[in-house]
């Protein structure tokens, strides 16, 4: 296991890491707000909306992410009539699949966060004269995010590893380049390199998240 060899495989793997990180960022940026909207929809007094979103969350959490990805990337174009219009760039399609899936998980996390907030908070806000919007944005949401933070952190670590599912829909990312090198060179070294890269990413992410958690300790 020479350094020259590691150097050689590292180059394309780092390129793949860029794709991995890009997917990660896109999913975080879009699925967290979308998840929050879903939480609000689930709590909506308009029953049909609540019901539909409940069903959506059930399906998204109840079927494998891999199946959902295959469905969006390879399945949608097979649909009669509209299929032709649903041929998306594979990376874009994969992003879509991840965002839709993770939003469902974040929705449940935020819902739990809202449930954890004491009724007394709403009552105090009401007696002090806050309107609904002020109560939500200034009192309830900051506390909800605080409660949800550790679970959101956990979920983002899972997301880092889930990005490797891109491999199955033939979007070249970190794992793809590792596998290519293994097949070509008959050595397991690229697997180790990939593992180290994933570990570095999750380590950095853990450190960032810990810092955010500490900042929102409220103590």
């Amino acid at each position: 296991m020479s350094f020259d060899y590691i150097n050689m495989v590292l180059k394309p793997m780092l390129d793949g890491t860029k794709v991995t990180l890009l997917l990660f960022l896109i999913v975080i940026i879009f699925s967290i707000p979308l998840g929050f909207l879903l939480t609000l929809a689930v709590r909506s007094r308009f029953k049909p909306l609540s019901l539909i979103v409940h069903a959506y969350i059930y399906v998204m959490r109840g079927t494998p992410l891999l199946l959902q990805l295959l469905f969006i990337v390879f399945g949608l174009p097979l649909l009669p009539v509209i299929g032709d219009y649903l041929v998306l760039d594979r990376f874009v399609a994969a992003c879509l699949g991840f965002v839709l899936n993770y939003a469902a998980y974040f929705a449940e996390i935020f819902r739990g966060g809202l449930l954890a907030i004491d009724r007394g908070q709403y009552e105090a806000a009401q007696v002090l004269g806050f309107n609904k919007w002020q109560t939500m944005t200034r009192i309830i949401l900051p506390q909800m995010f605080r409660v949800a933070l550790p679970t959101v952190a956990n979920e983002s670590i899972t997301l880092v590893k889930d990005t490797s599912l891109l491999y199955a829909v033939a979007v070249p990312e970190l794992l793809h380049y590792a596998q290519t090198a293994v097949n070509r060179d008959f050595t397991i070294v690229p697997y180790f390199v990939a593992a180290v890269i994933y570990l570095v990413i999750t380590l950095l992410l853990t450190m960032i998240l810990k810092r955010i958690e500490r900042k929102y300790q409220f103590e």
Partner: protein
Amino acid sequence: MAFIEVTNLIKSYDRLDVLKQISFTVERNEVVAIIGPSGSGKSTLLRSLVHLETIDNGTITVDGSNLVKNGVYAKPKEIKEITAKMGMVFQHFNLFPHLTVKQNLELAPKLVRKEASGDLEKRSSALLEKVGLADRADAFPAKLSGGQKQRVAIARALMMNPEILLFDEPTSALDPELTGEVLKVMKDLADEQMTMVVVTHEMAFAKEVADRVIFMDKGEIIESDSPAQIFKNPKNERTKAFLGLLE
């Protein structure tokens, strides 16, 4: 005219009558203590006054305006104006845990009253001084003792310049050694002629500070009189039994 007038208030959950035809008044500058066994409806009555509970029938008039008249509530905007005259202190403080003491005090006047921040700072530090917590302005509630939290909650309610303060068992969640500091703040407020309605289990406080004591049991006002009368010479058997149990 009395500051608060409640007439024939009725409230029930399902078929259970929690408040049965309650009528009473609170005069300006009066301190009224409401005592009675658990489940007698004291807290529900107090919470009805600020619209934290919806009543089924009856009339609640605050400072001449009807919050509810014969079971019909005023318009939301009017309800807001009427309840804005009242401040409330809860058993479990209900401070906002994500805000510092100072922010807890200043957020409502800032957002609701659009008060300028210079005035806010002056008033919040004066009030924290008054409740003896000037040095804890930047602490988060999690770092405070129960007694300190309740004093912050009182200061927070006072920031809105209420004309009456309602206390819902303000010392019931406190360790016994911490009730004194809260009761002292409340006594100071009474001495300053603050109008107050206090639901409490602190008989000593009711005896010493209240102008009038209302004894409730099973959703009814059994007796309403001066503390001397209620504690030394209760007329009703249920009052006697309740106070006897407490001795």
